[in-house]
């Protein structure tokens, strides 16, 4: 059975592809540069729609394991020096949180040895029956 209605992620993917494949080559200078920025924004929105919930859960779970409700609490405790005797552990948790979140914005920024921590977009398989998994084709 074929699909006929795009998901939110698929719409924003179409927007990003349009910016990248039509607007960028059809413009020059500043406008072309801005189209690239806009295409990156669209790709980020798509990743956040698909991966954002899992990223947010992992983030919150790791903070909870460290004994904190949110980034505000953790930041305050770091600032007050309350975590000076367990900084290694705090750096490790913060690294995982930072890398996963950065993976939504700019996965290529992450060094190869940390790349395994990034959440991956599910492979797109438009031919598969019953598939409504939004994915990244580019």
């Amino acid at each position, binding site marked *: 059975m074929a699909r006929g209605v795009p998901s939110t992620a698929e719409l924003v993917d179409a927007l990003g592809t349009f910016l990248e494949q039509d607007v960028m080559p059809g413009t020059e200078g*500043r406008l072309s540069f*801005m189209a690239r*920025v*806009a295409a*990156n*924004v669209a790709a*980020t929105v798509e990743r956040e729609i698909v991966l954002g919930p899992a990223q947010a859960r992992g983030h919150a779970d790791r903070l909870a394991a460290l004994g904190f409700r949110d*980034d*505000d609490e*953790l*930041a*305050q405790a*770091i*600032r007050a*020096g309350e975590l*000076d005797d367990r*900084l290694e552990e*705090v*750096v490790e948790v*913060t*690294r995982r*949180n*930072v*890398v996963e*979140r*950065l993976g939504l*914005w*700019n996965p290529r*920024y*992450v*060094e190869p040895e940390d790349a395994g921590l990034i959440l991956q977009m599910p492979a797109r398989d438009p031919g598969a029956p019953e598939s409504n998994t939004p994915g990244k084709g580019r």
Partner: protein
Amino acid sequence: MVATAPSEQLAEQLRAVVAEACSEPETEVRNLRRLTGGASRETWAFDAVFAGDAERPLILRRDPPKVARAGDAMRREATAIEAAARAGVPVPKLIAHGSDDAALDAPFIVMDFVEGETVPRRILRDETYADVRPRLAERCGEILAQVHAIDPGEVEGLETPDSLGQLRGALDFFEESSPALELGMRWLEQNRPDIGAARVVHGDFRNGNLLVGPDDIRAVLDWELVRLGDPMEDLGYLCARCWRFGVVERPVGGFGDYADLFRGYEKVSGQRVDPELVRWWELFSSVWWGVGCMVQASQHLSGNVHSIELAAIGRRVWEQEYDVLLYLDGRGG
């Protein structure tokens, strides 16, 4: 990008400024065009045409008109450029400057246009710069030693900011809290170095503010942030990961190695570089640029300027958080 009516008025005002500064009453201003639309400074290019058709390409840097300004930053910038020239630092020749709104509706600097490239990715990748690239790091060291030898008495209105205190204040200005940037701040506080005698520091010496030709660095630009401080700040800032433009394995601006930078600096200054101090300033610069990204994005978020570019820069805070953690892991260099 150039609005017609205001630029015609500006051309006429510029004509008077250049005619007087160059003692050329017959000056004409042609090809006036805006180069950048920065929120802090405007940059314009134009040609002054003198009697006998002699052309002189010039650059105008001007504060945005009708914006409240604190202090006399333009006089500081102008006197810094002149002092730098006397110290042997390559800078564009200063033609005229104004510290008030009288001549051009805002404080300004007019200087010679210098041919060359400032776009970091081109400097790092274009064939044109293949020969000069391996020499840039050592040249940066030599030039920074010259900057730090500038007599502070020759620059008007120099301040000596409390760098860490200002960074703390900037971080606290924003609602969002960042455990990663706080970890960076904690490390900076706990490892705060003893800083020696304050020198004139450029304050924004990085790939992007260096005008590069196929042969050499032709000019150091953007003296807006010149101040008194630890000279190692300029070296660390130049090496910070955020100014390597994707070539992270070449710590000096994406074009060179620490050894070349330090050799050039030590040769001209006669002083040893402390690599630990440079690293402290690299981490400082990463936290600083993390906050800088928020500052940029806040212009969009506040509704002052609508810009997808500024909005996107706000997410680059996350890149800076990652850089800070790499430094804390000893993986930043």
